[in-house]
């Protein structure tokens, strides 16, 4: 569980985070959503320590991250996996070397054992046989999966994903979402995802934090969104007519007035 209280961050005169507090739950996919510039990425970077918040406290399972020394943070970070928006794979290394890198750095296992672990995670992300390919030789979706494989290779307790679906087609996005959801449940990790993808919000949003102008505007899960009367949230999530129709259908389904095939139920 990651709890953060009253996080404030400003760059010059611009206030980016204005007292954000929330609890990210273990074993659930915790989503941070909001328009561009709402402070999602800055919040995530504060949580992992890439930015220092000006005020507030971050607590990882009862341990205050804000008060930790650099050495303590380094140890905690070995329990954190992160998938970056652009995957951030090391260009000069192959897929196998990328995934093996954290193992080389933090374990004293034999090469065969490390290779076995690499193959295990590659199988888990459905990339068997891609070991020797360079990042430049694989597609965007595959890069994301290699990024996930590298993030989970040390069995992290916390998984951060920054826009995991950006630049991917809807089908691949669904595959990535499903994979993240499965890993979260399987390993009981605390997953925090920054996303714009409405499909992700509706499919895997166990615990959603909606931010507007650096402030917490709304929290809930994907089911709560359907019935939420928050005007800003509705305008953000159900921006198009198509999505508004989808919302109406979901509401009717939830109220038992429509079946799963879109047919009205006559009572």
């Amino acid at each position, binding site marked *: 569980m990651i709890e953060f209280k009253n996080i404030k961050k400003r760059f010059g005169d611009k206030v980016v985070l204005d007292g954000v507090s929330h609890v990210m739950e273990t074993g659930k996919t915790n989503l941070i959503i909001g328009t561009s510039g709402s402070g999602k990425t800055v919040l995530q970077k504060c949580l*992992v*320590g*890439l930015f220092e918040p000006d005020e507030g406290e971050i607590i990882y399972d009862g341990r205050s991250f804000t008060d930790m020394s650099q050495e303590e*943070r*380094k*140890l*905690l*970070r*070995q329990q*954190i*996996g*992160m998938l*970056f*928006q*652009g995957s*951030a*794979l*090391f*260009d000069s290394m192959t897929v196998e070397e990328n995934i093996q*890198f*954290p193992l*080389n*750095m*933090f374990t004293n296992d034999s090469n065969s054992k490390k290779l076995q672990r690499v193959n295990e995670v590659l199988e888990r992300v459905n990339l068997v046989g891609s070991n020797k390919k360079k990042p430049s030789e694989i597609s965007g979706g595959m890069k994301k999966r290699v990024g996930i494989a590298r993030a989970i290779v040390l069995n992290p307790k916390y998984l*951060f994903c920054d826009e995991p679906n950006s630049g991917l087609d809807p089908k691949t996005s669904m595959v990535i979402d499903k994979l993240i959801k499965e890993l979260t449940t399987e390993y009981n990790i605390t997953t925090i995802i920054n996303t714009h993808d409405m499909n992700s919000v509706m499919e895997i949003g166990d615990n959603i934090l909606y931010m507007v102008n650096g402030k917490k505007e709304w929290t809930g899960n994907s089911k709560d969104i359907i019935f939420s009367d928050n005007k800003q949230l509705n305008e953000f999530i159900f921006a198009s007519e198509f999505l508004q129709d989808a919302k109406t259908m979901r509401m009717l389904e939830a109220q038992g007035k429509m079946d799963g095939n879109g047919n009205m139920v006559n009572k």
Partner: protein
Amino acid sequence: MNFFTHFGKYLLMLKGMISKPENAKVYWKEFMHQCSDIGVGSLGIVCIISLFMGAVSTVQTAYQLVSPLISKTTIAQIVRDTVILEFAPTLVCIVLAGVVGSKIASELGNMRVSEQIDALEIMGINTKTFLVMPKIAAAIVTIPLMVILAMALGIYGGRLAGEASNILSADTYDRGLMQNFMPYNVTFALIKAYTFAFIISSIPAYFGYFVQGGSLEIGRSSTKSVVVSCIMILLADYALAALLL
């Protein structure tokens, strides 16, 4: 940002890179990789420059020494001392500032922009220690070796040119090399080489590590790092000559 802000950040980067490696084996591998990149990778250009600077020195010195009263062995002495004192350490290092410096700045800049440095930080790795220190260490090990090689090749290039242009025979050249030789010159050249190696690696590392923006900024910081390194080499060259000669 003004000069003092840059200088302060540069010093903090150097301080930050001094920490215990997370895994000595991985760091050693990275150090060897950098030695190969910086040293072996620049060997070709260093050899070519050295041979030609020695050759040109011989021809031009002979052109200027027209008096029949001056022995031809003097040409070899002048070439030897110029190559050892100035050409091998300074000229080679200025060329290496372009070759190695731009490579270091663009490599780190690209890693910063594509979030690879952030990825390493998240893993719990001290990126200054892992990315900057092996580069500086590799430069300090390999560049003085290349300067020694440049001295030898420069002097040999002068000998070849002297013979080929019928300026002086190989025997006369060799005799000249032995006359009035001061071993301190080599020590001085090596002190320069170590200083320049540190400049060539640490300044581009600073510009690359702290780059902000996109590919345009990577190009700009790479160019800036080469310019600043060259100016710092020339300043250090003068300071060392004034202090040690």
